[in-house]
């Protein structure tokens, strides 16, 4: 009440507006203060420092000493680095394709059959569980001697043992385990997108005699495209950051080369060999790859959006 009176006392609105703008300036930065501090200390400063490290020789014990592009030169000839890139790329492909395809199917089924919250909550459970736990659980299920999955294979008369230590199966298994963990979550996101599709489109199509598969292909899929693209961008970036599962399924020991993903390689260089500078250079490569991928995908996303009008 008091404030209103003061304002009435003032001759014109201009001064009041001026005062408010000045107030905002102070209040605005005060509101931002904790976030700005956190950002500068734990995001901006370490980013600059990380770039600097990538041009130094730094073992955590000595002071970083500038070596120019030496780390990057070494990287070009480093077979383990190229191998880790290759492993990560095939991991990402297997993981994203399997996860997205199954999630899309599940979402479509839920969309056409049920609105059950219990069902959705159940599918969300693996997403709530730490990757460390997921890794342990599947390391046990896929134990060569006592694992239940291998027991089932035996019952089915399949004479093969699935194991993380098999060079051929290591990477696909890690990818499928993570798909298992994130498919429900992805399905729920896609399902939420499907709920935005107007119901009458389906009713109309049903009257025209279209079957479910036809409806999925000509209504659901095209209208879901922008959301699908967004989900893909986010899962792709997440997928590149695979670490926990690999760190766990080999009993805490380093993974076999066929499963040594880039995150693990960076971790190993930094904290096993104390090549902090070199690790930073590898991490820089990852920054560039993810930057390019995000830009490309965002552009595709925008394109698909304008398509739909």
């Amino acid at each position, binding site marked *: 009440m008091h404030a209103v009176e003061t304002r009435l006392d003032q001759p014109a609105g201009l001064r009041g507006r001026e005062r408010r703008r000045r107030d905002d300036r102070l209040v*605005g930065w005060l*509101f931002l203060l904790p976030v700005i501090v956190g950002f500068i200390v734990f995001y901006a400063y370490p980013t600059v420092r990380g770039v600097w490290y990538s041009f130094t020789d730094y073992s955590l014990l000595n002071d970083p000493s500038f070596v120019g592009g030496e780390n990057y030169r070494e990287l070009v000839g480093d077979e383990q680095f190229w191998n880790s890139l290759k492993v990560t790329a095939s991991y990402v492909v297997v993981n994203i394709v399997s996860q997205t395809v199954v999630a899309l199917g599940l979402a479509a089924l839920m969309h056409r059959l049920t609105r059950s919250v219990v069902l959705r909550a*159940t599918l969300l459970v693996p997403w709530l569980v730490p990757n460390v736990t997921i890794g342990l659980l599947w*390391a046990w299920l896929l134990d060569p001697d006592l694992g239940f999955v291998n027991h089932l294979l035996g019952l089915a008369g399949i004479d093969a043992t699935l194991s993380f230590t098999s060079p051929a199966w290591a990477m696909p298994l890690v990818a499928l385990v993570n798909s298992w963990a994130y498919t429900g979550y992805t399905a729920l996101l896609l399902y939420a997108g499907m709920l935005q599709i107007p119901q009458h489109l389906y009713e109309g199509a049903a009257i025209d005699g279209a079957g479910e598969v036809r409806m999925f292909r000509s209504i659901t899929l095209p209208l879901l495209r922008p959301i699908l693209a967004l989900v893909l961008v*986010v899962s792709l970036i997440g997928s590149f950051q695979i670490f926990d599962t690999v760190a766990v399924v080999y009993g805490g020991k380093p993974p076999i080369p066929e499963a040594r993903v880039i995150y693990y390689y960076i971790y190993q260089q930094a904290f096993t060999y104390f090549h902090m500078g070199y690790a930073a250079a590898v991490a820089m490569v990852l920054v560039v790859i993810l930057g390019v991928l995000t830009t490309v995908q965002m552009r595709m996303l925008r394109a698909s959006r304008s398509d739909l009008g």
Partner: protein
Amino acid sequence: MKISRGVSWFALAAAVVLTVFPFYWMIRTALTPAADLFRDSTGLWPDNPTLINFARVLGLVGAEEARAAGGSGAQINFLRYTMNSLIYSGLIAVVQTFCCAMAGYAFARLRFPGRDLAFGVIVAALMVPPIFTLLPNFVLVKQLEILNTIPGLVLPSLLMTPFAVFFLRQFFLSIPRDVEEAATLEGIGKWGMFWKIVLPMSRGPLITIGLTTVVWSWKDYLWPLLVGKAESTRVLTVGLGVFLQQSPNRAPDWTGLMAGSVLSVLPVLLLLVFLGKRLVQSMNFSGMK
């Protein structure tokens, strides 16, 4: 082409079984005496169910008894790790959500020079993968001599993540201004507006982002592994990793590991039971990270 409803329901049921069964197997193994495991690892229910595995990972039995039940004899205390995990994820979720809400509000509603530039810089940081800042942050925490302390563990994500700022700004932009305008006429200040009017109005999205943060920090492994590996600050995920490494020369202590795993699932499962409806229904593009 037609797909019958029966086949569709069957596919959904299969997905549920595939989702739930591994967790059932986790519990089943946790209830199996370690000595029986070799003989009794395929039946759907253990022959001699026991709670000893839980007791020993919680540190409730002596070293001798734990060793007799299949442990390595090394001290393991999941009760403490659970506490640490709760502190770690709770502290981060509450403080981070609050600070990011303040910033999101300022970015959405207040006018001041430099605002859009500051926002742009923060959003640009979304492009930097966590491992890139993790290396220098580790060095920083080490230089500050707060390795293996709670502050060292939580500080890097305590005040903000670019995602939370972005998400909450978008949300505050989407709510109607009427209420705030009415409150301005009442002469309420910016802080009063935020604290008394905007925050209570925004409970839903705040809980959503808070829950997402709880889940993600609950799952954190690499950072707590590097910064809080000591017993006193060990969180559950790190505890499980350490436990796994304690039996290097023989088969892993699966029954104990599965008991520890159950403990890492239980709290988030409770979260799902009590807040599941909210979590599931609020899941649209907001929940993504």
